[in-house]
């Protein structure tokens, strides 16, 4: 199979993939993106460039991804259905391809009610499942209406799944629907509840989905004990067990100095993340990890180092086995 992108090449080589997340700034400042990509470049194979995550206005995903391409860093653009209809999405995808972006992650997107412009109109013209189908259709040279694209883009298309949101029994089948729609890699929600995730992965492996797609387990460091508590109680779709919250709270206990207390809590957060990565490497069907450390990109090198995932493979040096072409007799 011809690799569609450097990330696809690393996936095909069978190496344990590491992707990270880069949040574009809430300003017209390109230097922020360059600074963050410098942190992530040498330690991760690609970074998701978020598309106005949590419905808060930020620099456009494609613009920030283009800055990453100039830095020589592989971006994965997130495309959400929240703000654009199928015309705008397809036109943006064509533009992204010409700017050197090779990976696309398809999501429905957080609703604007939770963002900083709750008055705005929800678009949601297509859903994430159909967005995957549209992107793969464009890869195959067809717009959504059936018209031909010449020359067509050739994206490496990803999707997301949250194993921690009910109805639990349906989640593996939803992943199957995404595989049938054409998703090639999957990034999961941040994992803290390992038993639940293992159960989910068992069903996924039984359905044979890990052979069709590269499944990257989502992990992330927690910064403060308050954040852990907030994620447990307030954030929808997150499952943070009580013992994680207790560990975060216990880390800073008894330390008088405020600075040392924050240090100790952060250290515990990183430790939990590293432990999580090590546990994920044992789970059958997992092709890599996706480290989500939004607005805390500088710890990613430390996490990757401590999890023993260095050095990262260089896509230019990877030699894939020659595709076996059936020769007509």
């Amino acid at each position, binding site marked *: 199979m011809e690799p569609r992108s450097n990330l696809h090449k690393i996936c095909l080589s069978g190496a344990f993939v590491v992707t990270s997340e880069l949040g574009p700034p809430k300003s017209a400042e390109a230097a922020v993106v360059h600074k963050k990509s410098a942190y992530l470049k040498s330690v991760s194979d690609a970074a998701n460039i978020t598309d106005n995550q949590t419905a808060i206005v930020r620099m456009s995903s494609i613009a920030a991804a283009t800055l990453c391409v100039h830095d020589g860093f592989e971006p994965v653009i997130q495309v959400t259905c929240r703000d654009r209809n199928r015309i705008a999405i397809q036109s943006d995808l064509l533009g992204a391809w010409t700017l050197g972006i090779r990976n696309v992650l398809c999501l429905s997107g957080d609703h604007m*009610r939770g963002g900083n412009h709750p008055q705005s109109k929800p678009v949601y013209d297509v859903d994430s*499942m*159909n967005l995957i189908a549209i992107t793969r259709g464009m890869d195959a040279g067809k717009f959504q209406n059936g018209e031909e694209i010449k020359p067509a883009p050739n994206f490496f298309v990803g999707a997301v799944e949250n194993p921690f949101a009910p109805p639990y029994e349906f989640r593996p089948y939803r992943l199957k629907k995404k595989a049938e729609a054409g998703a090639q890699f999957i990034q999961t929600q941040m994992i803290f509840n390992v038993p639940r995730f293992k159960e989910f992965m068992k069903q996924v492996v039984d359905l044979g989905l890990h052979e069709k797609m590269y499944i990257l387990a989502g992990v992330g460091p927690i910064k403060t004990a308050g954040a852990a508590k907030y994620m447990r109680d307030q954030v929808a779709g997150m499952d943070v067990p009580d013992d994680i919250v207790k560990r975060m709270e216990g880390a800073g206990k008894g330390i008088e100095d405020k600075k040392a207390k924050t240090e100790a809590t952060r250290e515990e957060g990183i430790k939990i993340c590293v432990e999580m990565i090590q546990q994920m490497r044992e789970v059958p069907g997992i092709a890599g990890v996706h480290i989500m450390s939004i607005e805390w990109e500088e710890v990613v090198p430390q996490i990757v180092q401590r999890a023993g995932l260095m050095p990262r493979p260089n896509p230019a040096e990877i030699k894939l086995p020659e595709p076996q072409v059936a020769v007509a007799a």
Partner: protein
Amino acid sequence: MKWYEWGPVAWTREYLNTHPRVENFFQVTTFPLEAVAKKLLFGCQTCGQCLLHENGMTCPMRCPKTLRNGPCGGVRLNGHCEVYPERWCVWYKAYHRSQTMPLLPKSWRQDMFHHHPVVDWRLVGTASLLNELTGRAHGIWPKEPGAEKKAAPAPAAKK
């Protein structure tokens, strides 16, 4: 064979598609009845391409993100909606109803696991029952009058 390819249904569709005024008459008379009944029973959003029976008689268009292929990742641990914490997630209800509701045929229960195409926004605010019959809910639209005229002389010339 799909049910809408069956002879009498296909003939009715052909008739309605070639007689827009008759179709409009039925559209105007059916829509209010269907909309009121479904609004009261299922909270219908009149998308004009009904997915009720595929989703355990739960309207997926009531989802704030109007998803038609299963729940998003934001369902709360108690099965409530991410956007409106006081409401149940539409898809949480739809999944459980489609699997446990009595009297549903097996094929309807299986529809939950199939891919549903994008919404055709031209049909929003029209009678879904009639769209089923005219085939528009399945993407069968009558040819534009201009296109038919252009296409018509070609086979005649060949003869």
